[in-house]
C-alpha cells in the first residue's frame, strides 16, 4: 500500500518535471519559459521529495525512535524547504533582470511596466 502511494507520488513529480523541460523548449519567449521552468519544477519536487520523506518516515517508525532513518527524513524535508524558499525568489530576480536588460514580452496584449518609467 505504502509503495503504491510512493509510486503515484513519483509519477506525478516526474510528469511535472517533464512538463518543465518541454515547456522550456516550446514556449515562445523568456517570460513564458520562466513560468514553465519555475512552477513545474517546484511542484514536481514537492511530490518527489514527498515520496522520499514518506518512505523514510515509514522506515523511521519501523526502526524505532533512535534509528538513523530519521536523518534521511529530516534532511530531505530541509532540502524541500530550501527549494520552496529559493525558487520563486530566484525567478523574481531573473524576471526583473530580464526586463531591465530590455527583453519585451512576445505577443503581449498589454505591458504596464513598459509604460511606467524607471529611472534607477
Amino acid at each position, binding site marked *: 500500500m505504502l*509503495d503504491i502511494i*510512493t509510486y503515484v507520488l*513519483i509519477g506525478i*513529480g*516526474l510528469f511535472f*518535471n*517533464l512538463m*518543465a*523541460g*518541454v515547456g*522550456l*523548449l516550446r514556449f515562445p519567449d*523568456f517570460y513564458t*519559459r*520562466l513560468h514553465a*521552468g*519555475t512552477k513545474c*519544477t*517546484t511542484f*514536481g*519536487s514537492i511530490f*518527489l*521529495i514527498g515520496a*522520499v520523506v514518506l*518512505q*523514510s518516515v515509514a522506515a523511521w517508525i519501523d526502526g524505532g525512535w533512535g534509528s*538513523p532513518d530519521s*536523518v*534521511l527524513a529530516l*534532511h*530531505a524535508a*530541509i*532540502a524541500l524547504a*530550501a*527549494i520552496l524558499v*529559493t*525558487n520563486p*525568489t*530566484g*525567478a523574481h*530576480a*531573473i524576471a*526583473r*533582470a*530580464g526586463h*531591465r*536588460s530590455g*527583453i519585451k514580452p512576445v505577443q503581449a496584449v498589454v505591458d504596464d511596466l513598459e509604460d511606467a518609467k524607471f529611472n534607477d
Partner: protein
Amino acid sequence: MSWLPAVVFLGVCIAIALVRVAIGPTVPDRIVGLDTVNTIVVVAMVLLGAAFREVIYIDVAIVYALLSFVATLFIAKYIEKGKF
C-alpha cells in the same frame, strides 16, 4: 523501492533543459534553463540519497540548492547592468 529509474528519467529532463541552455537565444533564456537544471539536480540528489540510503547526498543537495540560489542572484544582478 526502486528509485534509480526515476533518477534516469530526471536525467532526461535535465538533457531537455540543457538544450534550451545551448540554443539560447538570449542570455536570460539560458539562465532560465540553468535555474531549471539546478532545481532538477537537487531533486535527483535527494532521490539518489534515498536509493543508496546515504545521507551525504542529501546534505550536498541542501548546500547545492542554497549556493545555486546565490549564483542565480549574482548572474541576474550582472545582466541587469546594476551595481553590486
